[in-house]
């Protein structure tokens, strides 16, 4: 059965021990929606901090906000609940699930796999909030459980660093580097993170805004004081293997990258590239892309201390030079 060509609904999960700051992060996402329509599933309705004047409607298991976001309570019907949103005519920008601090994350994974297999959703990012201050007070089983969870996540928010002594932070950063070598870590207080890192649509927009140029245009953009952004656009058809080796290098420097690519072995097919942490997908676009139709565009965002736009730009130029010389026509 071929499903109608449409985008699958991105899902972001937020894991973390009790008290690590998951709800704070949910509140932050809702308050930074900036016109995006997010649907969040949370454990504890009461903990969500919503101003009365921002509320549109309240139902038994659902609060709709005036900004278009919806807050739902997490219950047994999670799968059915998500499926409802995924079948809507106008999709929300993302589903965000606050995974319970105690339940088995594998059970949630199984539900999400099921939705993905049904062609309704795609797992976008697995976030894990880690309480840096509490960590060293936990026993071996609990702290190892947290590290195991971190290892299977895409991005860890090392939270509450404002109250955590520097030496403890350093030790924990080293432990995480050992235990979760394929996971990116970003230090936060009150989960103060730029939501655009978490939610890929933001990067889509960045791609769209990139000025169209005929040949390689590599430029760096300072996004905020914490993050750096690198983006490029090129009319050169990219060699697939060269790009794969470039993509393998990226996670060391950025949290997230996204792009639309034209490969030399299939110039007619635009491919969507999506990198979250160390997890990358490259798949043929499901529907014709109108924007920038004959060029490749790519954007990466990362910590200001690790993402060096000049270096990534240089590496990207190198793969273009190793790619076939035929350029796309306008």
């Amino acid at each position, binding site marked *: 059965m071929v499903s109608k060509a449409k985008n699958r609904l991105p899902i972001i999960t937020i894991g973390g021990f009790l008290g690590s700051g998951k709800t704070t992060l949910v509140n932050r996402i809702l308050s930074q929606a900036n016109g995006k329509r997010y649907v969040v599933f949370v454990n504890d309705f009461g903990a969500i901090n919503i101003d009365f004047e921002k509320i549109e409607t309240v139902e038994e298991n659902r609060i709709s906000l005036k900004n278009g976001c919806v807050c739902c309570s997490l219950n047994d019907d999670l799968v059915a609940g998500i499926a409802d949103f995924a079948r809507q005519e106008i999709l929300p920008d993302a589903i965000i699930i606050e995974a319970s601090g105690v339940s088995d994350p594998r059970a949630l994974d*199984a539900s999400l*796999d*099921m939705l993905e*297999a049904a062609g309704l959703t795609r797992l976008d990012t697995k976030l894990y909030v880690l309480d840096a201050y509490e960590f060293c007070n936990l026993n*071996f*089983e609990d*702290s*190892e459980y947290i*590290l*195991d*969870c971190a*290892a*299977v996540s895409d991005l860890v928010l090392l939270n509450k660093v404002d109250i955590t002594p520097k030496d403890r932070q350093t030790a924990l950063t080293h*432990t995480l580097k*050992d*235990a*979760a*070598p*394929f996971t990116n870590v970003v230090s936060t207080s009150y989960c103060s993170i730029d939501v655009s890192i978490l939610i890929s649509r933001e990067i889509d927009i960045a791609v769209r805004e990139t000025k169209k140029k005929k040949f390689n245009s590599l430029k760096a953009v300072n996004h905020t004081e914490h993050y750096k952004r690198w983006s490029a656009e090129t009319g050169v058809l990219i060699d697939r293997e060269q790009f794969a080796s470039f993509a393998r290098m990226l996670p060391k420097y950025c949290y997230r990258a996204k792009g639309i690519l034209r490969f030399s072995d299939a110039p007619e097919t635009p491919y969507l590239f999506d990198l979250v942490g160390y997890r990358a997908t490259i798949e043929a676009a499901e529907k014709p892309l109108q924007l920038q139709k004959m060029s490749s565009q790519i954007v990466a965002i990362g910590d200001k201390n690790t993402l060096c736009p000049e270096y990534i730009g240089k590496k990207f130029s190198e793969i273009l030079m190793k790619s076939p010389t035929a350029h796309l026509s306008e």
Partner: protein
Amino acid sequence: MEILFVGGTIITVDSDNRFPEAVAVRNGKIIGVGSLGETQSLLSDGHQTVDLKGKYLLPGLIDAHSHPLWAAKTRGAPVVDVRAETVPTYQAVLSKIKRRVAVAEPNEHLIFFGLDAQLHPDMESPTRALLDEIAPHNPIGIQTSNCHALYMNSKGFEVCGIDENTPTPTGSIIERDSAGRPSGKIAEAITWSALETFYTAWGDQRLNDQFKASICEFIQNGITTVTEHLYMPFYKAYYQSALNQGLSLPRVAAYQQATTADMQVENLSMGDDRLWMAGVKIHADGSPLIGNIWLSQPYLETETTLERMNLKPGHTGSVNYPQEFFEKMVRTYFAQGWQMTIHTQGDRTIDMVLDLVETILSETPRDDHRFRLEHCALMREDQIIRAQELGVLCSFFINHITHWGAPIEDALFGPERAAHYMPAGTAVKYGMKISLHADTPMTDPSGLELMQAAITRKAGDGRCLGQDECLDVMTALKSVTIDAAYQIGMEDKLGSITSGKHADFVILDQDVFQCDPNELSKINIHATYLAGELVWHNGL
């Protein structure tokens, strides 16, 4: 105690009576399968009725090769899980070990389970010297995820009583330095006896608790019959205690492990088909994931085989025992009338075993011997034909494909051998009654997962390993019910919903025949019945 099951789809796995309306049960046995009128008339007025509410009633699932008690020993605290699923690199494994050692009591015995040359990309063999540096004061052991090998430090060797003067037991491996001193790695039977030292140090309370959890995992997955495929005589006490406590212990077919020809096979029989001695198990070779199997064609020469598994170029492996020694064991226990189950993975090993079976049968013919080959990773088509002619049965460790499919193809054996790895489809093509197994604790117990693996043959990364070997749904279902019952010699009592058999059932939320095969393992297990008793339900 009488029950009528009605109101859903009843999948009997009995070709004489496919989709009846209702099932009648009395005192733990099925007494009628048919129309509502027929079955109801067999029961007295006070019978209980279970309304299936549109769900699916199937015979309880059977895992033909598992290790429930052994699983309890190897899983759960204080065993530290270092499988690649959550501890993705060898360096991460070492750092976890260091963190555990840092909080260890003096002399506390530590075991880490799950080191994996195929799945830990930077895997090296930890040496005794390295482990001494990490843990100078505690006996520690790191067991590979395939269970066949163990790496220990000096304290570990000391508590297990293995040193330069210890002769290597026949069938086992002790790697040694030039002076004969064990250098860190041991493999096969000596691994399992060394581990007993650790398990004993942790005490019985821990083991009993963990055994309860292990039993429960089978029952929750709808598995009502298992095997204890490495039974040792002292296991009896734990089983006895579980039954005395009234725990919902699945039925257990025990296969006692033989490592010599002079073992006394225990004549075991508990309850109404709850635990019995079914036969004798012998390891002819080891694990394809370690390299100690006997092959006609060598392993691929890759980073995984050469550097992480430490195999030499052109490695074709070998069998565990000298052939005469092995032959004597098989002859002895076969002559005593036991069903034999032989662990075989490499094709040359299988040649050796089939040669022996043929010789023994020509000298002392025996009908219905149900000689079993276990796992059968690299069995060839000609060997399947020969096995079928000899009446030899195969039980396939199909989860190898889901868990290690990608490295099996890319790093160990190449596409041709991968396409027929665990050749369940070929065996069925030649008419063999096969069974499938999870070999718990190597992989987690789930009959539906076995079916999914055999139907789709999809590796973790989504690739299919050999379309020709895929099973249809009905055959896959039979291989975890009636055909598995046949392989343990219980087809008259188990494996289908048939009058006269034990009332062991599983109730599923979805139809295995309608479900997308890629989703089979996700079907909810609604309830499990053992001997007519509800032993588990999901609360919905």
